C-alpha cells in the first residue's frame, strides 16, 4: 500500500544542544564528578543532599557551603528492571534503574545499575560506580553502577608426572593393541576389567589374565549437559558398560546415538580410533556405539 503523501515525519531538535549554566552548587558537583569524586551538599540541618541542590527542599533554606564526599558505594532503596533499553538509556543491554543511597548521603541518587539479571538485585543490594573513561563534568561521567563484589573465581592448576606401572601398564599395553584385558578371581568367581593384581573382595592375588571382547551392555547411564574435552558435543552420555564375560562394569562415553535414545540393556561395541593413531591410552576407544542387537534383560 503506498504511504499517505499527507503524512510526514517531523523532527524537533536543537542542533548541538542547549547550553545551560549550572550555578555554583550543581557546578561543584559536576566538577567533582569530573575528578571522579561524588559529593553532596550539607544542609543547615546537617543532612547531606546527593546530588546536591541549591536549596534544602525540606526547609527552603540555602544549603551550606560544605561539600561532603560520599560513596563511592551505596545501597539500593528502590529499583525497576528494563528488559528492552531505549536508545537514550545509559546501557544498551537489560539493566536496572535504581535509587541508590550512597554511603554518607541522606538522599538517594538515581542511576542505572548493570546486572546479569534482575534476580541479582534487591532493595538493600550494595552497588559501586563504574566511571566513564574520560569524565567531562556530566552526570553520565558515572557510566553506571555495578553490584558489590561478593564472589571471585579462583583458578587452580598443578602439574604432575604420572606413571602407569603394575596392572595399569599391562592393561594399557593391551589397549594399545586393541585388546581389553581383565583378571579373574578363582575364589570369588568374578571377572574384573580393567586388569588388576588383587581381588578387591577377597584380597587374593589374580594371576589369571584374560582377553575380553569389546562388546557389552549398558547397565546405567547419565546425560551430561556440561561440556567435557573428551566428549564430542553437549549433551553427551556417559555409561556403565558391562563387557561380555565381565562382572564389573567400566565407565565410558556412548556415541553415534542421540542422548535420548540411550537406555539400560542397550548392546554396544567399542569404536576404536584407526590403528595408526593408537597409543597406550583409553583415548584409543572413541566411545561405545549401539550394535543394533536386541536389548538385554538386566538382572
Amino acid at each position, binding site marked *: 500500500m503506498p504511504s499517505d503523501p499527507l503524512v510526514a515525519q517531523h*523532527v524537533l531538535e536543537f542542533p548541538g544542544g542547549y547550553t545551560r549554566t549550572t550555578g555554583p552548587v550543581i557546578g561543584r558537583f559536576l566538577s567533582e564528578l569530573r575528578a571522579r569524586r561524588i559529593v553532596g551538599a550539607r544542609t543547615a540541618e546537617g543532612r547531606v543532599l546527593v546530588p546536591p541542590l541549591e536549596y534544602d527542599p525540606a526547609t527552603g533554606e540555602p544549603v551550606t557551603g560544605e561539600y561532603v564526599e560520599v560513596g563511592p558505594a551505596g545501597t539500593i532503596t528502590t529499583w*525497576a528492571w528494563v528488559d528492552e533499553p531505549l536508545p537514550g538509556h545509559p546501557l544498551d543491554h537489560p539493566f536496572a534503574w535504581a535509587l541508590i543511597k550512597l554511603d554518607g548521603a541522606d538522599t538517594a541518587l538515581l542511576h542505572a545499575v548493570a546486572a546479569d539479571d534482575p534476580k541479582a538485585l534487591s532493595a538493600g543490594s550494595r552497588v559501586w560506580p563504574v566511571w566513564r573513561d574520560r569524565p567531562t563534568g556530566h552526570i553520565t561521567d558515572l557510566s553506571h553502577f555495578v553490584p558489590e563484589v561478593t564472589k571471585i573465581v579462583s583458578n587452580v592448576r598443578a602439574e604432575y608426572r604420572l606413571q602407569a606401572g603394575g596392572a595399569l601398564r599391562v592393561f594399557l599395553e593391551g589397549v594399545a593393541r586393541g585388546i581389553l584385558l581383565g583378571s579373574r578371581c578363582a575364589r570369588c568367581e568374578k571377572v574384573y576389567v580393567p586388569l588388576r593384581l588383587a581381588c578387591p573382595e577377597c584380597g587374593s592375588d589374580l594371576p589369571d589374565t584374560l582377553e575380553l571382547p569389546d562388546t557389552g551392555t549398558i547397565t546405567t547411564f547419565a546425560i551430561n549437559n556440561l561440556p567435557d574435552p573428551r566428549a564430542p558435543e553437549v549433551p553427551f552420555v556417559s555409561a556403565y558398560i558391562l563387557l561380555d564375560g565381565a562382572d564389573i562394569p567400566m565407565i565410558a562415553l556412548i556415541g553415534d546415538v542421540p542422548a535420548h535414545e540411550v537406555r539400560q540393556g542397550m548392546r554396544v561395541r567399542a569404536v576404536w580410533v584407526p590403528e595408526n593413531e593408537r597409543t597406550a591410552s583409553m583415548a584409543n576407544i572413541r566411545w561405545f556405539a549401539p550394535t543394533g542387537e536386541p536389548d538385554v534383560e538386566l538382572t
Partner: protein
Amino acid sequence: MRDVAIVAFAQTRHTDHDTGASEPELIQPVINEVKERTGLDRFGFTCSGSCDYLAGAPFSFVSALDALAAWPPISESHVEMDGAWALYEAWVRLQHGDIDSALVYGFGKSSLGDLRTIMTLQLDPYYLAPLGLDQLSYAALQAAAVGAERPELDEIVRRSRADGRGNPYALDLPDPEGEDFALRPLRKTDVPPITDGAAAIVLATGDLAARLCPNPAYIRGIAHRIEPHYLGLRDLARSPSAADAARAAGVGKGPVEVAELHAQFPHEEIILRRALELDGDTVINPSGGPLAANPVMATGLIRVGEAARRIHDGTARRTVAHAASGPCLQQNLVTVLEA
C-alpha cells in the same frame, strides 16, 4: 471567597490514534458544546492547558486559539500543564470579583510522537534527563516502591477498563490479559493507553451559575501542593503533597461519594486513595479514569469535569477530583465539589 461553580463540561470522544484533526479542529467541538449549553459566547476569562512538546511545535497553544473566536481580543492565559491547572488559574481569576464567567480547556494529541520519551523532556536537565529516564522507567520505580500485590493492581486495571467501556467518551479496552512486563515491575496492562482528546469547562459565579445550570457543581475547596522534583529526595511509596492538598481542599470534611483520580498507573491509585483517605464507600473513577482514556494535558481536567457531571446529573451531592503533574505524582491538585 466567591462561590464558583462548574456549570458545563464537554469532552471529545477520545481516540487511540491520530485522526488527522488539527488542534483547533480537536478543540472546537467541545468549545462549541459548552457555549451552546450555557448560552454564553464570550467569557470574562479564558485559560487553557497543553504541552507544546506533544505537538513538537513552539507556541502551538496560540494557534489553538483559532477555535475560540478570540476577536475582538479576549482576556486569555495558558499553562504548560494539564488543563486542571488552567481551571485553578481561572478560579483564582474569578476571585478578583470583576468577572463572573470563565472558559477553561485542555487538549493533547499524544499519538504524534513517543510519549514515553517526550516525558523525559520535563525532567531536570542536570541529573535526570541526561540519563534518558523515561515515563515508564520512573513509573516502574514508583510501582516498585509501592510494592502492591499483583491481584490488587490487576483489579484496578480490570475495573477501570470495564468502566471505560461503559463511558462513550473513553476507549474500548478489553479486560487485561497477559503477564508481559513493560518495565518490571510494570506490566504492559498497567500502562495507560495513548490517547488524543480535549475537554472544556465553564465556570460561573453566584447568580450566573444558578441561571446557567440547574445543578451547579460548586467548588468548595481547591488546592495544589508540590514535592521535590528529584525522585531520590522523596518517599515514592507515599504522596505527602496529595495529602496536603486534600487537607487544604477539605476532602475529609464530609463523605465523598465519587472520586475521580488522575492515576495513570494502578499503583498511583493506591497511593492517592491513601493520601486522600478515601474509604470503601467512595466510588473511584466511575468514568474509567486515565487507564481507560489518557488524553495527556486534558486527563486531569476531565477528572474535574467527570466529578462535576455526577452533581449536574443529580447522582451525587459531594465529589472530589484530583489532577497530577510531573514525574511520579510530583504535583497534585485536589478539588472538592458540592451540589
